[in-house]
């Protein structure tokens, strides 16, 4: 029997980046805020001390910080005609778990999307004609412009203290930055990181080919920085334990290091950890949320009444909650009706290995987002006429670490065991560099999320079912951009080179990226979206959804900067409009 708790103004589901930002801002506006987090409390000092936290086996291999399939998982199939099976070991993508969420284990790459990414369909149609888009491609313009989001990108970058070099300030191209980037109102809050050898060689080679290398905008800070919340971050030490790890050095931006110290001083904020929200509760009309139901660690069920419900879980967990709570109409690809689960997208990653003979790369001198990128083949930065595809990706040299178990690269013909393998290990560690691409994935009618008809989670709810495969457009894009990257690899003087463009079918086994997007997309009307331009549910106006599940399709960048920007954008509207007059902020 569920027990009902005293009412609160705001219930936040998930205490990662978006949950922490919302909690800080809304508690600052005088509201009582309760954040309910499925996983454990995590604190820099006690959970990630540099004396023992750089433990590859515990964190990178056994995945200590991540969602466990026993908590919940998804089922997966490539085609609608197949039967989906549960993912029993997360691998292709790794959803976070616990306070800080993905903001704890991320690498810290903090890009802004391109201006054209936000008006993708109208831009591509105008430039090339509608015939360039495959018939089943369901991309759509965002209901916000880059200009709407710019101040909010800036705000998130200042919160996180991002290190970088602007390429475009108010339309003026800046030397050393990314000339393709959308106009910024200000330089990055901290200067770009110093580059290790590998990315320096990459940058030189890219430049020699006429490309425009720039430092990756990085959440691994180049210098000590105090953000507008008064919270201080230290300088990155290039320890090489960002990805899949918490930072014990206070130098990687995370909810722990950027928001929680200030948030936890607030008397009108409360965090409840190890509490799993199983449902958003609705009133008898189905148009108003009354709060949430959650199960605590001892298995007890609680009802937390709330005036507003903020869905801040990992992308597909947000979609799952909407579906099991009956908020919005589930998407059906056959009848092409409904919206919840529609336009699920992923990212089309690929890579190139280069052997740089007689070079000592010292890959352990690294940070998760410390590297150089080239944007010449991202989005619509290049002419797609006659190429047979749209989209692209950021191509980068970011050596995220030199970990002994997982970060030594081998060529296909390197021996897999024995003394030959040992020899290759010894040689490759210092001389083989892995270059990578974050490629865009556009949305399609047959790539979507819904509830699985067979498999259930420990609370009795159906698992989320993912139906996803690569489409011709993305495979062609991957082949093209990977070839360009291989060209840079050759120019680096590679004595051996192997290129790995993405191939079908989509497999859930090799790690690719955790940039899962869509399913609760934002749009300009209820027929093409789950939430409006202020991330407010069209169907239940006191429910808001944050994070990458609101992206209508995925761009060729890491998503966190855009997640932060859309969160601040919606927060502004909530504070200035919604709180004064609760109800739909966009007329139906």
């Amino acid at each position, binding site marked *: 029997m569920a027990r009902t708790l005293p009412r609160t103004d705001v219930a936040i589901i998930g205490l990662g980046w978006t949950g922490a930002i919302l909690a800080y801002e809304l508690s600052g506006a005088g509201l009582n805020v309760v954040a309910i987090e499925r996983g454990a409390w995590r604190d820099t000092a006690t959970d990630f001390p540099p004396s023992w936290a750089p433990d590859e086996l515990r964190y990178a291999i056994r995945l200590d910080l991540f969602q466990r399939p026993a908590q919940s998982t998804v089922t997966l199939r490539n085609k609608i005609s197949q039967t989906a099976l549960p993912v029993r070991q997360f691998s292709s993508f790794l959803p976070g778990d616990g306070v800080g969420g993905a903001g704890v284990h991320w690498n810290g790459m903090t890009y802004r999307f391109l201006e054209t990414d936000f008006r993708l369909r109208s831009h591509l149609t105008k430039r090339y004609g509608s015939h360039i888009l495959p018939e089943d491609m369901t991309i759509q313009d965002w209901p916000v412009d880059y200009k709407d989001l710019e101040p909010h990108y800036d705000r998130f970058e200042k919160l996180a203290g991002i290190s970088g070099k602007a390429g475009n300030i108010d339309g003026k191209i800046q030397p050393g930055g990314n000339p393709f980037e959308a106009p910024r109102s200000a330089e990055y809050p901290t200067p770009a990181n110093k580059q290790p050898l590998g990315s320096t060689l990459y940058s030189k080679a890219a430049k020699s080919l006429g490309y425009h290398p720039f430092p990756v905008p990085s959440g691994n800070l180049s210098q*000590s920085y105090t953000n507008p919340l*008064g*919270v*201080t971050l*230290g*300088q990155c030490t290039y320890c090489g334990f960002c990805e899949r790890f918490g930072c014990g050095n*206070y130098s990687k931006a995370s909810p722990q*290091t950027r928001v929680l110290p200030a948030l*936890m001083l607030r008397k009108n904020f409360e965090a409840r950890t190890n509490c799993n929200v199983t449902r958003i509760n609705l009133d008898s009309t189905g148009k108003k949320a009354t709060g949430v139901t959650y199960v605590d660690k001892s298995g007890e069920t609680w009802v937390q009444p709330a005036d507003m419900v903020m869905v801040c879980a990992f992308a597909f967990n947000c979609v799952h909650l909407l579906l099991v709570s009956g908020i919005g109409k589930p998407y059906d690809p056959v009848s092409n009706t409904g919206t919840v689960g529609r336009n699920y997208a992923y990212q089309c990653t690929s890579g190139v290995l280069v052997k740089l003979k007689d070079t000592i790369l010292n890959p352990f001198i690294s940070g998760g987002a410390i590297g150089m990128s080239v944007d010449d083949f991202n989005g619509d930065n290049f002419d797609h006429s006659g190429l047979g595809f749209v989209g692209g990706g950021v191509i980068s040299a970011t050596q995220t670490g030199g970990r002994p178990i997982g970060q030594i690269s081998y060529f296909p013909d390197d021996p897999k065991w024995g003394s030959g393998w040992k020899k290759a290990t010894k040689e490759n560690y210092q001389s083989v560099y892995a270059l990578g691409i974050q490629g865009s994935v556009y949305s399609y009618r047959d790539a979507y999320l819904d509830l699985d008809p067979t498999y259930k989670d420990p609370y009795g709810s159906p698992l989320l079912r993912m139906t996803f495969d690569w489409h011709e457009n993305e495979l062609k894009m991957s082949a093209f951009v990977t070839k360009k990257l291989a060209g840079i690899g050759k120019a680096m003087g590679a004595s051996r080179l192997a290129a790995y463009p993405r191939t079908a079918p989509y497999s859930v086994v090799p790690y690719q990226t955790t940039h899962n997007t869509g399913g609760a997309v934002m749009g300009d009307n209820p027929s093409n979206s789950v939430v409006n331009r202020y991330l407010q549910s069209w169907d239940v106006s006191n429910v808001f959804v944050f994070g990458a599940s609101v992206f209508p399709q995925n761009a060729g960048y890491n998503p966190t900067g855009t997640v932060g920007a859309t969160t601040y954008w919606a927060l502004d509207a909530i504070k200035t409009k919604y709180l004064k007059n609760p109800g739909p902020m966009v007329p139906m």
Partner: protein
Amino acid sequence: MRQAISSCLFVLMCFAFEAVLVPPTSAASSQSGTASAQTLAQGKKLVMSNGCAGCHNAPGGATLVGGRVIGGWTAPGLTNDKRTGLGNWSAGEIADYLKTGRNSYAAAAGPMAGIVTNVTAKMSEAEVDAIAAYLKSLPGKAANIRPVAASNPAMIRGGAVYADECAACHTLRGVGQARLFPALKGSPEVQADNPTTLLRVVLQGAQSVGTEAAPTASAMPAFGKLLNDQQIADVLTYIRNDWGNAAAPVAKDAVAAARKTLQKTP
């Protein structure tokens, strides 16, 4: 409230301070030099009425020169002495520390964390300024200790441990990072005759205080399981005697004894 706190024997604990980066005493002395008699009197009154002397006076009673061990922490000196007191801090840095729990060189931890939260962070700017002016007016005693030679085997071993385990935060030059990781260079805590605080902080770790003005409660991880007694003795000897620091070496037995004591009374 203040009376209740003042009756407690809390230590004004400055976990580590920095010396050399500070433009030495010129700014500081001019500030204390210009403080009015009224300000100095107000500062003295605040220091006395809040019970600072209860911890920071010497075991023999000498005013605010430090050295008492209370609750497993050594109270540092608060005089203007450069090695064992606040001589390297400007009056502004002292005021900042009292108001926010940290400054460019140090962060409050241990018993002083509670004092900052409950007492000094609640004081007015004028009050913390008066305390700072008063403390800067206290003459320091001349230090006359020669550092352990850099060629000493303990210094060489300790320097290696330091580079591996400590330098990431405290930096190879021992200056730390402002408002986050305390400086070891020039720190009166690091150079205290009695290394009780150092032993505790390395073995058990320590959490600094977070305040409204400076919410980041940065922490020192515990190294008790990672390093053995000899390694801890060596690294402490090293940080007490590099970068212009000077203090007696720390013996392996002292580390073993501190482990035992901390097990009984953590």
